[in-house]
């Protein structure tokens, strides 16, 4: 985005006309100097900017921590409904306060109203779920749109009828980070502290309810109360984030950091830590960037920053990332294909006692049977040679000692599985677990002995009995 802005600025340099009318396509950003960037990032760019950056960083941290439990409890979308449902509360609070002669724009009053209708929205979802047969998606969709619609109607009524003092209310939709005061930043700090403290105290209870609420209830835990505490923290973060990033985007701060963090870890407490870091980093970078580029609203830049972190996590995370997954799938494909090739060569050895050789013609037939492409065949041969399973012998491929042992193992496994399916055809499909490579891991010792006896009766010589293929 920055690059694009810079390119636009350069492109428009020569023909720049001061008197040209300002149009959408003509807006350019001043590209900040390195000194300015450094100052902003090290929190030395003036009191106001620093306040905003610290405040949004703390907000991102709190949202990251709390968002983990919303994600694990599968409540991510409900937080979206919650944030949309705050809008009518803001308008109604303004009207009520003005009618009572209080300043309608006082932040505590507006946030109180936001909390009331936000919680009301969540209660409505629960009521719809309990009283009707509608699914959660439908309930959330209804509540989200109806409450948001009511909010827009209230705001336009205020704009048409109330005094000019109402102008600031629209900022709650998109957020107005630059307006953050020291008190607001302190509030974010307090909420972040509360979120961390609650997590430290109740990590055990939260995880139990998120993982298996029915078990928790039978075990005697007050599941509704624990849920309420988690939801209250979500409400707290949402309402606190309204002013900074706006109700449309605050939910992204709750969802995106935990989802990104999930790619990097399998441990719960680490997930909380990583989500907190990603949230804080997004808040910090996002607000700093928006401070440097005045026309970029902080809320969307913060969300875009966490979006970038998400894409990086999605692609590059070890074990869960797309790259790692594809790599594992490819390796698995090669292992299975290698098993097939080695087994075929080993069967040759069993028939002809030639140590397990495959001619080019035999290999081509095998490739056709298994659907291996030409490049796959080349790669497979290269890999099996590197693993020391096969060696070149003239124009043919021959199994090494190591390869014959592998072939024996594979042949035995396949024979046992086959016998198992034959013997226990009625119950086998639900019991066979193909994902394990050793039958012993799944079938009991006596059962394997029984299968081996059955195989011998059928005249199938079990490969393991041949050992390394020296028989």
């Amino acid at each position: 985005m920055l690059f694009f802005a810079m390119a636009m600025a350069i492109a428009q340099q020569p023909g720049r006309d001061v008197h040209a009318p300002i149009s959408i396509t003509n807006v350019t950003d001043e590209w900040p100097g390195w000194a300015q960037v450094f100052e902003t990032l090290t929190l030395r760019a003036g009191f106001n900017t620093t306040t905003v950056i610290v405040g949004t960083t703390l907000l991102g941290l709190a949202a990251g921590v709390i968002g983990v439990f919303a994600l694990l409890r599968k409540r991510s979308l409900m937080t979206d409904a919650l944030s949309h449902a705050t809008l009518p509360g803001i308008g109604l609070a303004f009207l009520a306060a003005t009618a009572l002669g209080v300043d309608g724009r006082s932040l505590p009053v507006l946030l109180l109203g936001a909390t009331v209708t936000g919680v009301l929205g969540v209660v409505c979802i629960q009521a719809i779920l309990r009283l009707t047969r509608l699914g959660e998606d439908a309930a959330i969709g209804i509540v989200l749109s109806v409450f948001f619609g009511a909010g827009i109607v209230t705001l336009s009524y205020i704009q048409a009828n109330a005094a000019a003092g109402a102008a600031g209310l629209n900022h709650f939709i998109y957020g107005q980070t630059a307006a953050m005061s020291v008190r607001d930043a302190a509030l974010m700090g307090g909420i972040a502290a509360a979120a961390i403290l609650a997590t430290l105290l109740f990590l055990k209870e939260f995880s139990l309810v998120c993982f298996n609420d029915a078990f928790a209830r039978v075990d005697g835990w007050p599941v509704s109360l624990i849920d309420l505490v988690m939801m209250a923290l979500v409400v707290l973060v949402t309402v606190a984030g309204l002013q900074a990033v706006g109700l449309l985007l605050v939910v992204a701060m709750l969802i995106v950091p935990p989802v990104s963090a999930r790619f990097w870890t399998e441990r719960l407490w680490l997930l909380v830590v990583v989500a907190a870091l990603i949230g804080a980093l997004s808040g910090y970078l996002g607000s700093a960037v928006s401070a440097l580029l005045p026309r970029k609203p902080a809320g969307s830049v913060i969300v875009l920053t966490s979006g970038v972190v998400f894409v990086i996590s999605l692609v590059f995370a070890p074990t869960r990332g797309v790259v790692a997954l594809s790599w594992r799938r490819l390796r698995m494909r090669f292992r299975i294909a290698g098993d097939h090739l080695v087994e075929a060569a080993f069967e040759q050895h069993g028939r002809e006692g030639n140590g397990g050789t495959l001619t080019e013609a035999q290999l081509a037939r095998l490739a056709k049977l298994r659907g291996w492409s030409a490049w796959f065949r080349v790669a497979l041969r290269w890999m099996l040679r590197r693993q020391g399973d096969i060696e070149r012998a003239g124009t043919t491929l021959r199994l090494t000692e190591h390869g014959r042992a592998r072939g024996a193992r594979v042949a035995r496994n396949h024979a046992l599985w086959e016998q198992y399916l034959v013997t226990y055809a009625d119950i086998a499909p639900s019991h066979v677990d193909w994902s394990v490579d050793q039958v012993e891991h799944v079938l009991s010792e006596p059962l394997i002995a029984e299968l081996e006896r059955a195989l011998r009766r059928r005249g199938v010589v079990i490969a393991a009995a041949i050992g390394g293929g020296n028989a």
Partner: protein
Amino acid sequence: MTAATRQASTTTAATLAARPEHSPESPLSIHAMTVAYHRKPVLWDVDYDAPSNQLIAIVGPNGAGKSTLIKACLGLVPRASGQVEFWGLSYRQARSRIGYVPQRESVDWDFPVSALDVVCMGRYRMIGWCRPVSRRHRQAALACLDRVGMRDYAHRQISQLSGGQQQRVFLARALAQEADLYFMDEPFAGVDAATERAIVDVLRDLRETGKTVVVVHHDLQTVPEYFDHVILLNMRVVAAGPVEAVFTNDNLHKTYGGRLTLLSEAAEAIARAAKGEG
């Protein structure tokens, strides 16, 4: 326990135990229990007294209300009417002596915890609020994993376990609860042979140490081999009692209606069991 609650407990104990058909020694007494979903009854007027120290199977066709029976006893689904008591006590009072294995599909196994973490959840009520899992409880949880043959997998993330291994983790968590009465919802569903064996071993182990286990079971063939007592259920209790007395062709016919394939399997199982005894 204050005097008031003791008074309360004795009065509730009196309600069912005073009836001639229920005894306070029974780990589970169900009286006239009816359960309805959206006004449609799924369980109708269930009366049952579980014998102590037995392995009890709940058997019946799909939609017979097997899981619902367990959930209604545990208060997970509301009862339209009726009472449930454990050793003559209310569920709330007896809770610390009750263990539970939910259906495996009821949770998201892509949860960021290890097998050991899940088993530790069985110790949470002994650990109490806000306190971390101590080494002593971790050791106890490890021992439970060992009993189901899963000690080597203690630190695996749970989504990396096979279905049968996940089932064994759930069983280990229930063992970690150190209960006297266990409810297990379909523990044998879709598990591999090694897991089936491990579960059966644990069940017999539990019986030897004086526990009572109520199991929702779907495989008629294994009922005579695995269980002592059986509840034949099809929205109401068709028959309940010792397997050799109740698990008959006639009763199965009443429970399953005209599903012949199932019945012929069961007939074989009965014949096999009779041969085994003879």
